[in-house]
C-alpha cells in the first residue's frame, strides 16, 4: 500500500517532468497541445487518487498531508483546465499569426515544467527543496511571460525576472536562517531542513533568529504571492504574458508561494518565543487589499486589472490566515480555492475576449453580453463571483472573514470592509462598461472553449450554496492545523 502511495507522489512529479521532456522534442503544435492536456489529465487523476488511497507515509523529501493535498488537487485541476483552454487559445493566436510556431517551440514543455515545479514545491518535505522548486517555477514563468517577445512582454518578463530573483534571494536567506535556528537543536544535515522534523521541534528553536528568518521568508515568498509592496512584477507579468500563463500564475503560482508562507507560519506559530506571525501577515494583507483596491480604478488593460484583483484577493487570504483561528483559517482556505477557480475562469474569459476584440484595452471593449453572450455572461458571473457577491463561493469566504474579524478585532474589520467596498466599486465600474452598453469593436464570433470556464464557475456556484460535509470537516481539520 505504502509503496503504491509513494508511487503516486512520484507520479505527480514524474508525469509532468516526462511530459516536459517529451514535449521538448515535439514540434507539431497540435500534437503538443494534446499531449499537454493528456499529461495534465493524468496528473490530475493521480492526484485525485490520493483522496482514495489516503496520504502516503512521510518521506525525507516528500510529504503529503491534509494541507498540501488541497493545493495539489487544486493545482492539478486548474492545470488541466488551463491546458484545455490553452489549446484553443494558442490555436487562435497561431491562426491570427500573433504567435509563430518558433515562438511556441518550448511553450508546452515549459508549461509542464511549471506544473512539475509547482507540484514539487507542494510535496516537498524539505524547505530547501521547496525553495528550489519555487525558483524553477519562477524561471519557467519568466520565459512564458516573455513569450510574445514584444517590448512590453520582454519588459514585463525582465521586471519579473529581476524582482523575482531578489525575492528568491531573500527567501533563500530566510531559509538559511531557519536552518541556522534548527541546526543547534536538530543537528546538522538534512533533518534541519525537513519540515516534519522542524514542526516537531520548532518550539525549542531560538525565537529571535526565526523572527528574522520569517521576515525574509515573508518578503521573499511574499514577492511571489504578490503582496504589496513587493508585488510590482505581478500586474505586468499577468498583462503581457499569454493568457494561459496569466491563469496559471494567478490561479496557482500565487497559491504555491502562499503555501510556502503558510508552512513557515505554522512553524512560527508553534514557537512560543517567536513573534506571532499574525500581525505581519495581517498588515501585509490589508496593505495589499487596500492598495490593489485603489489601483483597480485607473486600469486600462483588462488583464492588468484582474492581476490587481489577484493582489487584492491574495491580500484577503493572507489577512485571513494572519487572523488565525478556526473560522478565519477555514475562510482563508476556502477563499484561496474559490479565488483560484474564479480567477482562472475570468482569465479564460478574458483571453478569448481579447482575441475576439483584438485588444486588451478596456475602453475598446463594450457590450460583451450582446456581442459575445457566452463570453460576456461568463465574465459577468466571474466578476460577480470575484467581487464577493452571492450565491457564489467567494461570498461565503468573505462573509466568514469579515464576521470572524469583527468578532475578534472589530477595528480591523473597518479597513477590511472599506477595502472590499472600494475594490467592488472599481470592478463593477469596469464590468459595467465591458459587459454592457452598445457593443463596440469586433463582434465576430470567436472559436472558444467555454467548458473550462463554466466548469470552474459552476464549481464556485455550488460551493457558494453547498459545501459537502467531508470537504468541510477536512478544511476544518486543516484550519485547526494552521492554528
Amino acid at each position, binding site marked *: 500500500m505504502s509503496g503504491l502511495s509513494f508511487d503516486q507522489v512520484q507520479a505527480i512529479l514524474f508525469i509532468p517532468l516526462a511530459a516536459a521532456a517529451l514535449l521538448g522534442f515535439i514540434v507539431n503544435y497540435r500534437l503538443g497541445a494534446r499531449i499537454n492536456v493528456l499529461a495534465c489529465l493524468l496528473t490530475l487523476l493521480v492526484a485525485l487518487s490520493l483522496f482514495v488511497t489516503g496520504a502516503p507515509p512521510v518521506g525525507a523529501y516528500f510529504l503529503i498531508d491534509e494541507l498540501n493535498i488541497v493545493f495539489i488537487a487544486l493545482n492539478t485541476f486548474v492545470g488541466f483546465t488551463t491546458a484545455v483552454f490553452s489549446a484553443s487559445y494558442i490555436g487562435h493566436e497561431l491562426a491570427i499569426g500573433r504567435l509563430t510556431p518558433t515562438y511556441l517551440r518550448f511553450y508546452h514543455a515549459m508549461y509542464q515544467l511549471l506544473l512539475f515545479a509547482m507540484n514539487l514545491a507542494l510535496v516537498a518535505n524539505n524547505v530547501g527543496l521547496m525553495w528550489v522548486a519555487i525558483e524553477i517555477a519562477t*524561471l519557467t514563468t519568466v520565459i512564458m511571460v516573455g513569450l510574445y517577445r514584444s517590448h512590453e512582454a520582454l519588459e514585463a518578463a525582465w521586471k519579473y525576472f529581476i524582482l523575482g530573483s531578489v525575492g528568491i534571494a531573500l527567501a533563500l536567506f530566510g531559509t538559511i536562517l531557519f536552518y541556522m535556528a534548527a*541546526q543547534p537543536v536538530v543537528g546538522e544535515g538534512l533533518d534541519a531542513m525537513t519540515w516534519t522534523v522542524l514542526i516537531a521541534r520548532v518550539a525549542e528553536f531560538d525565537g529571535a533568529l526565526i523572527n528574522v528568518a520569517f521576515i525574509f521568508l515573508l518578503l521573499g515568498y511574499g514577492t511571489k504571492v504578490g503582496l504589496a509592496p513587493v508585488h510590482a512584477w505581478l500586474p*505586468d507579468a499577468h498583462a503581457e504574458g499569454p493568457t494561459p500563463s496569466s491563469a496559471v500564475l494567478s490561479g496557482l503560482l500565487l497559491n504555491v508561494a502562499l503555501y510556502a508562507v503558510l508552512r513557515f507560519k505554522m512553524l512560527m506559530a508553534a514557537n512560543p518565543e517567536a513573534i506571532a506571525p499574525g500581525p505581519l501577515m495581517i498588515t501585509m494583507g490589508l496593505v495589499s487589499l487596500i492598495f490593489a483596491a485603489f489601483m483597480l480604478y485607473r486600469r486600462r488593460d483588462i488583464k492588468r486589472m484582474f492581476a490587481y484583483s489577484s493582489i487584492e484577493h491574495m491580500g484577503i487570504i493572507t489577512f485571513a490566515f494572519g487572523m488565525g483561528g478556526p473560522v478565519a483559517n477555514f475562510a482563508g482556505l476556502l477563499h484561496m480555492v474559490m479565488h483560484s477557480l474564479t480567477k482562472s475562469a475570468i482569465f479564460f474569459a478574458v483571453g478569448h475576449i481579447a482575441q475576439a476584440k483584438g485588444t486588451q484595452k478596456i475602453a475598446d471593449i463594450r457590450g460583451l453580453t450582446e456581442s459575445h453572450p457566452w463570453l460576456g455572461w461568463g465574465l459577468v458571473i466571474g466578476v460577480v463571483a470575484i467581487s464577493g457577491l452571492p450565491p457564489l463561493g467567494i461570498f461565503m469566504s468573505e462573509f466568514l472573514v469579515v464576521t470572524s474579524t469583527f468578532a475578534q478585532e472589530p477595528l480591523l474589520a473597518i479597513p477590511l470592509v472599506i477595502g472590499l467596498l472600494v475594490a467592488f466599486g472599481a470592478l463593477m465600474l469596469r464590468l459595467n462598461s465591458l459587459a454592457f452598453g452598445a457593443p463596440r469593436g469586433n463582434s465576430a464570433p470567436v472559436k472558444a472553449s467555454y467548458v473550462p470556464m463554466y466548469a470552474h464557475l459552476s464549481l464556485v456556484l455550488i460551493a457558494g450554496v453547498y459545501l459537502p460535509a467531508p470537504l468541510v470537516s477536512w478544511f476544518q481539520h486543516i484550519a485547526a492545523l494552521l492554528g
Partner: protein
Amino acid sequence: MDGLIFDIAHLLAGGLVLVSFMMLYQDRLYALLNVYALHALVLALSVAWQAFAQDAPHLYVTALIALVFKAIIIPVALHRMIARLGIHREIETVVGIGPTMLAGMGLVALSMVVMLRVTAAADPMAREDLAFALAVVLLGLLMMVTRRNAVSQVVGFMSLENGLVLAATGARGMPLVVEISVAFSILIALIVIGIMLFRIRERFDTVDVHALDRFRGERR
C-alpha cells in the same frame, strides 16, 4: 586553534563587508568591477576557510565556483561588454556617495542589532557570520536601489548573492549549498545574458533601466 579559526573566519567575513562598502564608494564602472572581483575573491577565501574549518570538502567546490565564475569570468565578461557597448563609464547614482555610505553604516548597524540578539546558545562563529552576511545582503540591495546603471545593479545583485553564499556556508552542515551556489550562478549568467540580449536586439539605446521603462505597456 579554535580561536584562530574563529578569528580568521571573522576577519574574512568582516573583509567582505568592507569590500561591500568599497563597492558603494565606487563611481566608475571599471573600478566597480574590479572591486567586485575582489569581493568574490574574499568570498572564495572565506568559503574555503569554512570548508577547512567545518571539514566539509564539498564547500571547496563552492569556493572554486566563486573564484572562477564570479571573480574572473563575470567581471571580464562585463568588462568587455562595457567596452563593446560603449556604456558611460560613470555610474549615475540616485543619492550621493556620502549619504549612501551613511545609509550603509545604518544597515550594518541594523544587521548587527538584529543578529546579535540571537541567543548566545547559537554557534558564535555562525552568529558573526550571519550578522556579516546580513550586512552584505542589505548593502547589495542598497546598491541595486541607489544605482541607475543596469551593470552596477547587476553587480549589486551579485554582491547580495555573495552574502547569501557566505551565510549558507557559515551554516554548519547545511545541505544543498553547492547546488544553490550553482543555481545562483546560472541566475546571474541569465541576467547578464539578458542584458546582452536586450542590447543585441538593439531595441534599447543603452542598458540603462530607464530605457526599459520607456516601453512600458501602460503609459501615463
